[in-house]
């Protein structure tokens, strides 16, 4: 009987995932033995510690790794790109805990936090994927966690509907991705990213290109890039707001980082195909996201369309396929993630005040009632447009620079026009908050609740947003380091 060879496992490199999974286990089991009142505090506390621990582990790995190595039988990549993405995912999770803290889930507190941690662990695994198998495994790992998270408010029809829609459309996307992977395997006979690159010359080009196209579609679903975005508005609107906040930031980070890694590492010889097709996806996302957002009155739905348009902006630097583009992507993601969670956090705060979904009219007068929240939301909205002093300004500047540098000035012009369109709906929020007379909020128990945890998350998001603007240089250095070893085609 032949002995099945077990690969040597670099446990240290997997520590972010392991810490998060450990936290998830604690959140699931320990609250069973705790009195009701303690469960929420315990779970939130464990989640914060886990996210901090995972982030610290990823930072430590980032410090240690100068060059990337493939570990666990070449299935997982240990490199700075993955580690930087893991830091961002852990940071997103940390901010999400603050948003979630006051979210009322009577019986399912433990499940909520453990799924949040599991989803984050899945994303951390996904961004480090080094072959088609781990890629699919990671994708399903975090997707399934997110399906349940979307539907976790089972008393609300909207939440159930969001979960179901996400499940069906998401599975469809996963299936396409898997099918595409099978084609690529069929064409090349290998699943490792570098092996595919090496074997692609001899492989069947028709199968290979078909597989590549299907993989791009599958990843486009997760990144909610148009025309694969159909689920996004419904799911973002229906899912509990803290979950939406987490998805809007962390899923984007995971999907886009892996898209860049996969395309650059595995398909350098098909570069002429995927760069231009991504550019087309960029244009469609920018057009569809911005035009769709114009007519929304529900703030969450509007932010969902905005996230589609930002998928376009984020794919722009990947599409150009240059080191400058890689740097732009990683830098853009940092400030985008913070601003996205911050803005959904403010929506969550308003939602709890009004006890109903937040429409633009529902935001009326908020700027004067809650000056801190109003100022933060104004910063985020101006920032999403790409105005200083938000780090996204520099992100957009880099994304456009990458396009111009590649000789695709037209793509930057498309981005500029899309930005002009976006002014209307982003400023619609500011207009509602400050220019319109306040609606009479009459909460049952007196003044609206002031949530320390949520406020802290918003404050952290503001700090990151402005910090990325002022301290651009060190972050750009980190972003440069994280992509320095990727074999960019240009």
């Amino acid at each position, binding site marked *: 009987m032949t002995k099945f060879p077990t690969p040597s496992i670099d446990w240290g490199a997997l520590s972010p995932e392991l810490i998060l999974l450990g936290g998830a286990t604690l959140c699931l089991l320990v609250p069973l033995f705790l009195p009701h009142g303690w469960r929420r505090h315990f779970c939130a506390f464990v989640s914060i510690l886990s996210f901090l621990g995972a982030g610290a582990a990823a930072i430590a790995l980032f410090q240690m790794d100068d060059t990337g190595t493939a570990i666990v039988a070449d299935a997982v990549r240990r490199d700075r790109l993955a580690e930087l993405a893991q830091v961002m995912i852990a940071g997103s999770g940390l901010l999400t805990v603050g948003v979630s803290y006051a979210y009322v889930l009577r019986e399912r507190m433990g499940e909520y936090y453990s799924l949040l941690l599991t989803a984050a662990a899945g994303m951390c695994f996904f961004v480090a994927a080094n072959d088609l198998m781990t890629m699919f495994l990671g994708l399903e790992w975090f997707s399934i966690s997110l399906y349940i998270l979307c539907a976790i408010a089972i008393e609300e029809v909207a939440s159930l509907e969001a979960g179901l829609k996400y499940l069906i459309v998401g599975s469809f996307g996963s299936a396409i991705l898997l099918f595409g992977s099978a084609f690529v395997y069929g064409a090349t006979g290998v699943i490792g990213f570098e092996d595919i690159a090496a074997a692609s010359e001899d492989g069947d080009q028709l199968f290979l290109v078909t597989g590549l196209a299907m993989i791009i579609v599958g990843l486009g679903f997760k990144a909610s890039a148009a025309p694969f975005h159909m689920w996004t508005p419904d799911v973002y609107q229906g899912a509990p707001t803290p979950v939406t906040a987490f998805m809007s930031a962390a899923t984007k980070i995971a999907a886009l980082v892996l898209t860049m890694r996969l395309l650059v590492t595995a398909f350098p010889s098909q570069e002429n195909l995927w760069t231009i097709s991504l550019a087309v996806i960029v244009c469609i996302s920018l057009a569809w996201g911005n035009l769709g957002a114009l007519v929304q009155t529900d703030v969450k739905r509007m932010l969902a369309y905005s996230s589609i348009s930002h998928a376009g902006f984020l794919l722009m630097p990947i599409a150009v396929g240059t080191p400058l583009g890689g740097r732009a992507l990683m830098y853009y993601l940092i400030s985008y993630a913070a601003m996205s969670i911050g803005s959904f956090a403010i929506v969550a705060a308003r939602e709890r005040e009004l006890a109903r979904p937040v429409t633009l009219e529902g935001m009326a007068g908020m700027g004067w009632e809650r000056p801190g929240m109003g100022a933060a939301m104004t910063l985020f909205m101006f920032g999403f447009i790409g105005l200083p002093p938000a780090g996204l300004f520099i992100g957009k500047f880099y994304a456009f620079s990458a396009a111009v540098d590649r000789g695709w000035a037209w793509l*930057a012009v498309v981005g500029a*026009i899309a930005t002009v369109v976006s*002014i209307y709906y982003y400023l619609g929020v500011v207009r509602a908050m400050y220019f319109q007379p306040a609606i009479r909020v009459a909460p049952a128990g007196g003044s609206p609740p002031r949530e320390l945890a949520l406020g802290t998350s918003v404050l952290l998001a503001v700090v990151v947003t402005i910090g990325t603007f002022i301290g651009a240089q060190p972050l750009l250095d980190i972003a*440069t380091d994280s992509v320095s070893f990727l074999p960019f085609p240009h």
Partner: protein
Amino acid sequence: MFTSLLIFLPIAGALFVWIVPWPTARAAGGAALLVALAELVIWVNRALNFDYASAGLQDEASHSWFSDLGVSYAVGLYDFSLWLVGLTVVVTTAAIAYGFWTGRERMGVYLGLLLFLEGATVGVFAAQDLLLFYVFWEAMMIPLYILIGVWGGAGRMGATIKFVVYTLAGSLLMLVSVIALGLSAGTFDMTEIGQSDSTWIFLGFAAAFAVKAPIWPFHGWLPDTYRESPPEVAAILSGVISKAATYGFLRIGLVFFPAVVDDWRTPVLVLATIGLIYGSLLAFRAPDIRGVIAYSSLAQMNLIVIGLFAVNDSGISGALLQMVTHGLVSASLFLLAGAVERRAATGNLVLLGGMARGRPVLATALITTGVIALAVPGSSAFAGEFLILNGIFTRGWGWAVAGAVAIVLAAMYMLRLISAVLHKDPGSAVTDAALDLRPAEISVIVPLVAVLLALSFWPAAITDHAFGGKPEGTVSSQFEATP
């Protein structure tokens, strides 16, 4: 050092006014006013110690911001930018004082936003890095949007969205141009970027400047915005912010794209001449005070553009003098319009009239400003317009004739405004309860008019102290194409 101080003192002051929980609105307003006065003192001190003999950059400061693309925090002042900074500081101080005396709702927030705007505008005039210039340029828009949207008139919703979409549509094209120019030059440092002959890059910049100035036909946002703004904000908008655009044409358009400017002179001059005549005619037909000032502002800005695109000593010097003069004139006029509107509750010229009787200070201030605005010989506006027309004459006598016609039109609309407000029979909206200017208003408007009078006596204060203060032939040499 001084430059950074001039930029960040108002911005820090704004944060200070916003964050401190002031006991009363007056206290918050007083703090804002003190910050503005301190800024004014710093600028005066700087202007007195400036080396006008040197054409180079002074008081520069530079720190790397992100090095891989060569972007830095680089600021500094040329002698001509010093005057525009001075205009910003004087007009903003007047606006803040006016807002303080008249008492606005949420005074701290309001005056803080004006301070923030001041810092951003000074930044535009001082930035010596293209991206930094763009950052300050966009930073001007954020406070303006909120100022008009919250404290504006009844039609503010439509006005703000028009204003923002117009401005940002122009400035985002400028962003693409900033990137293209910076990447092709390998640096974003404005003192190191050489000349470029790319028409597209020039047009991207020109789009932003043409909207902001505005040049005809990019002025669609202007009438609504000037009508719906609070008078202080309208004063700053037409007095100062529009000058950022003409400064952009001077500092970026003429310096980096001399060959393209040469090619595009005729189209730009055609548009600007149409704008000059069109604005003047509309000012003559406008039904309200603000309309007259708004359209006269449009006309004047187009005249300044004509002076710049002459690209010779006389034209550029005249344009600079006219920028400062018009800034002071239109700021004074908008503040006076605010004073009239406060008394009559309307700016409609049909309902006004006869306000001179029993209101000598108001009448004197309005007539003095109006007479300077219509460029009566001996006024600084006359000096500026003469230099501009003299400059453009060398490019073709037709342009100068059109300009001279516009000066006649200016006399017509200004005298119409003066007579409709001050003379004739008292209008239905003018009651005896409408008093003369109060001491608080006098303390704001009289100094502005005094500065204008001083400039009229001594326009050489600016023309001899700009562009290195050197004799004939050296101004334009800084802006000529290298063969």
